[in-house]
């Protein structure tokens, strides 16, 4: 862009322009060079997952060149996708993540609406509190939560430990604060004239929310949904602590605990499982990259 501008500047600048554009080409070449290096660093593990998943266990133990598949086979995929155990993990993960997304939205949308538009006693404090809650990591709460569940189970007789459904109640603690926080931002950015007009026309608060706020803030809503889904899908610590029976496990825990049998690592299957487990977030990312990035970077999240 600026080269164009300099082009018109006249002949006296020509010498300078030559060196500047040469500098630019070199800067570009170096950029590409380093980008390729970093891309190799960033993509090696996923590519290696794919390579290993296409190998038979015989080829893996033969210790040939690990970076190449000599006899590609889909047997690992076939085995896992027909194994009831693996499908069970997948199903558990899917049902938990979807339920958590719904619960999260039902809690955080109304709350964000109230916090963004209705100034009431303590609303500012509550908004800050929600944000602070988001900063409390799961590794701080898993022990007291475990004990709490055990105590509640003892008192009420309802089995809570080692049941996948308890995760549906626990995961919202990770998703709701952040989703509320970003929804507050999105709702606050909607011009006040819109809901003023609706109120004057006699709409109730709920109607304002469903007819105006949700449709207008839809991009934010999608971003929040994606965030809630990926966080629940990737969560590892809580299911590891709260569930132990094979039929109650979610994907990340299931793969790390059941596919590793004693000292025998069936790496072909582990990598296939890991790749299949990474597939849903990757697919969402591939199709909705902008929402994904918007959701996970709004207000700075994790990493």
């Amino acid at each position: 862009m600026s080269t164009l501008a300099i082009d018109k500047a006249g002949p006296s600048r020509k010498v300078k322009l030559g060196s500047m554009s040469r500098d630019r080409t070199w800067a570009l070449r170096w950029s590409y060079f380093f980008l390729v290096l970093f891309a190799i660093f960033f993509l090696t593990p996923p590519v290696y997952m794919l390579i290993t998943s296409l190998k038979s266990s015989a080829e893996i133990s033969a210790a040939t060149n690990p970076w190449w598949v000599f006899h590609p086979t889909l047997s690992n995929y076939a085995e896992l996708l027909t194994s009831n155990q693996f499908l069970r993990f997948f199903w558990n993960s899917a049902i938990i993540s979807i339920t958590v997304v719904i619960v999260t939205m039902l809690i955080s949308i109304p709350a964000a609406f109230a916090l963004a538009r209705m100034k009431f006693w303590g609303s500012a404090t509550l908004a800050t509190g929600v944000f602070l809650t988001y900063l409390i990591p799961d590794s701080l709460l898993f022990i007291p939560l475990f004990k709490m569940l055990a105590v509640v189970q003892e008192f009420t007789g309802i089995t809570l430990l080692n049941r996948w459904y308890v995760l549906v109640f626990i995961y919202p603690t990770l998703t709701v604060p952040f989703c509320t926080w970003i929804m507050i931002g999105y709702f606050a950015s909607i011009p006040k004239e819109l809901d003023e007009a609706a109120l004057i026309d006699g709409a109730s608060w709920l109607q304002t929310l469903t007819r105006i706020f949700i449709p207008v803030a839809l991009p934010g809503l999608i971003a929040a949904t994606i965030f809630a889904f990926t966080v629940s899908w990737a969560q590892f610590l809580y299911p590891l602590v709260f569930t132990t029976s094979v039929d109650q496990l979610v994907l990340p825990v299931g793969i790390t605990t059941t596919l590793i049998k004693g000292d025998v690592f069936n790496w072909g299957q582990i990598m296939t499982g890991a790749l299949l487990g990474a597939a849903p977030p990757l697919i969402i990312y591939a199709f909705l990259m902008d929402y994904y990035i918007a959701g996970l970077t709004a207000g700075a999240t994790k990493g």
Partner: protein
Amino acid sequence: MADVVVEQGRLARTASPRKKSTSLRNVLGRKSTVAFFLTLPLILLIAMLVLYPAFYSLYLATLNKAMTKFVGLGNFTFLFKRETFWMVVKQSCIFAITAVIFKALIGFIVAHFVHNIPGKKQRKWRGMLLVPWVIPPAMSTLAWLWLFDPSYSAFNYTLSFFGVGPIPWLGDTFWARFSVILVNVWYGAPFFLIMYLAALKSVPDQLYEAASIDGANWWQKIWHITLPMMRNIIAITTLFSLIVTFANFDIVRILTSGGPLDTTHLFATWAFQVGIQSSDIPLGACVSLFMVPILAVAAIFILRDVNKRGNEA
């Protein structure tokens, strides 16, 4: 502002002659009542599943192993006398600080390279470079575990051509610490990249053009323009990452489970081992509580920055 709106709304409603509102309806229709019901689920969730456990953990930390007797600060003094505890403190700090520094550096450098290339291609490169951050960490760490495998390590295979190795990636204290940090940097750097890239794009081009006319070199441009313009985003991203890295669990748990000889344990993984695996819940709660001071300091700084940013906007 909002109050005016409400007044108008209420006026509009009371003005209509057909609606005769009873007192109950008045209460239900009042703004604060509606707001209370809308935020109630959120408040309940946070109170029951975040705040209560947090304080419960304080209580648990004062019990003995069988949770029958109050021992006060007994667990804390017990921890202070254990060598493993101090090792965990040291390793957690080394891990978090080193990993965050490298994540920030790599993120900063790569963001510049991505920013340098023509706009159309940026999207493609950005999409590729963010992949580590999209894969659930438990899954990608398995791939690293396989890359670090003692007998079939693909890294050692490659390095053998250069006459290096074999390196005991997870078997030796130094290399195990190196590996956990490497994996964490790999997972977290894309997050910095995307934050910094957004920040870079918000720096007006005119500033750089003015600087070039004044004869500034690239280093002066970064030091006097880029860094000051990005200061806020750098601070907030680093603090966030510090919290998450400090509280990390997945990577260390899967890669080393704290080994060799507990030298790679972080607070989270050690608390898991002590509290859940050895079922000494009070001691585990005690260990994880040691994260609170550092998290609190980071949280205070973040909150200050967020508020500042809110006021500027």
